[in-house]
């Protein structure tokens, strides 16, 4: 048993729902008790979907358990087929139904429906949502795509090349975007546009807005764009192994990765990327370079999300905005290795966890200048009074904006710049504030107006108490014997050191206090004087 306050991912059948809901003619019959229909609201409320998810819930009750829940399931499948006339069906069990072991796959097969019926085996007590989506997508593809086992992957590939006419463009599929995916709607538009402007034909986008017939045609494209590896990697790997379709490894988040992605797809499509790359305005790069962005340099950022988004965000933060990545983590255990590798680039250790409290603790410990995370981290940051932007699922209704808001491609890079910088307050504004940092009107009492009501650090350590605790000293003495006691000594601030600290403006005061106290502890100083404050400043730099 795991004590859980909030979860990053739903159970695996929610992943299956995301695949079914993404597609236009796939139906899902889910063996489940009353209450599991809550999942519908994820799509209709968070995603503002105009249609109900194509899911039929058997809604068994306690009194059915003694009776024939198997019959109930079969009736539901028949009725769903009759009513919705899907082109294929997936069937499976939610956590409760898994326990009663009715074998949805077998039961559905027994009905001999005239469409493919694909059984899903998603262990609810072991796996989670993204895994469920990935498995479902893979199994649906495997069930729908015809494979001639006598033909090798290489032969498939050769056949594609041979059949090609001179005027035929290189082609690809885009795999991975799903309903409820973070900004998938707009990423697809951006990347599809990018590929088409390169002269690449995009055959199938799946599962988002794909139909069953689309999936059948997947092997016809020259290669696959694996846009969201959490969902698409399994399928892409199989398509590669079976049909010799290579797939992309680069996630085009940020200007640099987008350019690398262009190189990658151009290599796969045997095209020359030069013209396309030259035509780009790269506004995000200019904004990062423009002088009002100078204050962003080395701002300390904490990043958490699904693996792909977290890794990509760290790269953009570090190389394109000039932040310093002080924390990087993911809840995607399936991609823990990749995130650990990425963290090494920043000289830090990755945080791999799905325990929200552990993430909160880490953020509190690191006290970054900015958090880039999921809706969970947004709440953590709000509580801790740290600026935050959302970069990854789990999503909220806010993550489905009306406006075009891709994360990928060149426009995605613009969106990232604006979205990440906004909470830090835009350029000149923050910068000028910074310059007035000794201003009496920005006194110790003035809270940052753009942040929540939770004052950072300051409120936790009320000045009054501390100041009252020590008698004022004229010539502050400094105890510099570096004694390491068992109990970490609580620092005491001299009155005038506290006052000097108060002259530092609120938005750097917390950091100054922390640095000073850390410095004092490390140097065995129990009473913090003005000199300690400046010694610490000299030690840590500004």
């Amino acid at each position, binding site marked *: 048993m795991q004590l859980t306050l909030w979860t990053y991912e739903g159970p695996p059948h929610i992943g299956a729902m995301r695949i079914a809901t993404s597609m236009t003619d796939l139906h899902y019959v889910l063996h489940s008790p*009353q209450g599991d*229909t*809550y999942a519908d609201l994820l799509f*209709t409320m968070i995603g503002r979907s105009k249609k109900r998810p194509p899911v039929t819930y058997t809604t068994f*009750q*306690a009194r059915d*358990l003694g009776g024939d829940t198997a019959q109930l399931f079969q009736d*539901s499948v028949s009725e769903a087929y009759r*009513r919705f006339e899907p082109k294929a069906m997936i069937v499976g069990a939610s956590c*409760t139904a898994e326990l009663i072991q009715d074998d949805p796959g077998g039961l559905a097969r027994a009905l001999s429906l005239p469409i493919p019926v694909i059984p899903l085996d998603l262990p609810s007590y072991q796996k989670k949502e993204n895994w469920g989506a990935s498995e479902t997508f893979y199994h649906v593809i495997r069930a729908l795509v015809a494979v001639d086992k006598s033909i090798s992957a290489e032969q498939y590939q050769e056949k594609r090349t041979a059949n090609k006419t001179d005027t035929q463009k290189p082609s690809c599929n885009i795999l991975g975007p799903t309903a409820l995916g973070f900004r998938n709607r707009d990423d697809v538009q951006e990347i599809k546009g990018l590929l088409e402007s390169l002269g690449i034909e995009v055959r199938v986008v799946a599962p988002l807005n794909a139909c069953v017939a689309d999936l059948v045609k997947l092997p016809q494209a020259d290669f696959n764009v694996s846009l969201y590896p959490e969902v698409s990697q399994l399928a892409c790997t199989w398509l590669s192994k079976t049909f010799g379709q290579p797939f992309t490894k680069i996630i085009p988040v940020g200007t640099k990765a987008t350019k690398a992605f262009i190189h990658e797809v151009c290599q796969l499509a045997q095209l020359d990327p030069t013209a396309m790359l030259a035509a780009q305005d790269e506004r995000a790069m200019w904004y990062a370079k423009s002088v009002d962005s100078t204050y962003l340099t080395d701002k300390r950022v904490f990043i958490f999300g699904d693996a792909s988004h977290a890794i990509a965000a760290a790269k953009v933060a570090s190389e394109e905005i000039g932040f310093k990545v002080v924390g990087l983590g993911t809840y995607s255990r399936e991609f823990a290795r990749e995130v650990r590798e990425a963290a090494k680039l920043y000289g830090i250790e990755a945080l791999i966890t799905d325990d929200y409290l552990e993430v909160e603790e880490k953020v509190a410990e690191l006290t970054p200048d900015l958090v880039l995370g999921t809706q969970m981290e947004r709440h953590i940051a709000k509580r801790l009074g740290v600026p935050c932007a959302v970069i990854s699922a789990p999503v909220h209704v806010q993550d489905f904006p009306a406006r075009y808001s891709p994360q990928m491609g060149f426009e995605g890079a613009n969106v990232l710049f604006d979205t990440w910088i906004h909470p830090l307050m835009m350029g000149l504004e923050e910068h000028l504030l910074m310059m007035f940092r000794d201003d009496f009107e920005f006194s110790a009492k003035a809270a940052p107006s753009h942040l929540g009501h939770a004052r950072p650090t300051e409120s936790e350590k009320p000045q009054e108490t501390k100041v009252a605790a020590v008698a004022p000293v004229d010539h502050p003495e400094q105890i510099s014997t570096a004694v390491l006691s068992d109990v970490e000594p609580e620092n005491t601030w001299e009155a005038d050191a506290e006052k000097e600290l108060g002259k530092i403006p609120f938005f750097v005061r917390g950091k100054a206090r922390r640095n000073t106290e850390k410095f004092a502890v490390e140097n065995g100083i129990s009473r913090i004087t003005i000199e300690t404050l400046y010694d610490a400043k000299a030690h840590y730099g500004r």
Partner: protein
Amino acid sequence: MNAIVDLPVEQQHRVGKNIPIYKERGQREVFCGLTGIIWLHRKIQDAFFLVVGSRTCAHLIQSAAGVMIFAEPRFATAIIDDRDLAGIADANDELDRVVKTLLTRRPDIKMLFLVGSCPSEVIKLDLSRAAQRLSTELINQCRILSYSGSGIETTFTQGEDACLASLVQASPKQAEVIEKNLLVVGCLPDVVEDQFHRLFTELGIHNVSFFPPKNSAQKPEIHSNTQYLLAQPFLAETARLIEERGGQRISAPFPFGVDGTTAWLKAAATSFGIDPTHFETVTQSKIERAKKSIERYLPMLTNKRISFFPDSQLEIPLARFLSQECGMQVLEIGTPYLHKQHLECELELLPENTRIVEGQDVEKQLDRCRSDKPDIVVCGLGLANPLEAEGITTKWSIELVFSPVHGYEQAADLAELFARPLNRSMKLAA
């Protein structure tokens, strides 16, 4: 009314003014009883709710709670995993470990509910025994109770019933007959509770208490001289247990709208022998004010046609209020469960041609809804946007549970909740 033919006529019962109750079975688009935690944990301010369930349970509460993440929640899920399924003994050990971890982290918790779920019920994890075991062990720290909010047994608001029932069961039995008292049963927002408290005091009923109490130290006073008044229509089991302990129910409509509130108060006043003239003196100005307040919304509501999808069991009292006081025409009342005794007074007040459907087959109900073309539909969050996309104005039902809607001062607010979507549809269409 042609769509009605699909309904199973053979199971008809008749209530009120000879209204048939159709029963329906099929996919239910309703929350399970776990969801009640979302208001229960805020009402009982030193209680914590630990769901013993699957990742689905955790995800459900999280999805239903939404914004609550801003606060430090007083609920959590002990997520059962593969190892727990391997052996119940282990599961009990694990549960004990989780409870102790939790109580170490949150020593402020004075009452802990272990809340059963579909999986815990199916694997027959005995939470009441676990509660007893842990209560004994942690006797000086925390009371530990249990109830089930599982979807195989409870629908949405029935979770509150199960929770309150467990509280009644755990409360000490009072043997001797003491002074006659009034117990108002069912979670009410504090502001409403305070209003009612003032009203009862003004009426001259002084020995009043509200159940559940705001904190675990307060125990309900139930004995053979207890008169209890239901504030909510979904408390079947709680009522049964109160009666087992000698409490007598004051039969009344529910305090929704002006007339409902007056009738509810009147029933209590009569039971406590309050002089009718005094009753009128106390209530008159409130009634007038509330009536005047509602008037603002009548132009938007009168003669509008409404249908209810089943949700909270509040559907019948609300339909009564809307038809009786707001002049709305009720086409269909879907309700997950209908307690004929508790709703007796309500059913009497419904117009003859009302269609009441107990249970749900959501697909068939949608068919009827599309054929009825009501001006407004009350439904859950899963259905609201798709119906709006079809051009049908909706009111999301869950808000009726979370908003203060009982009593005189909220009567207009309640009307406004239905007037607003109609007003909005009109504004945006203009």
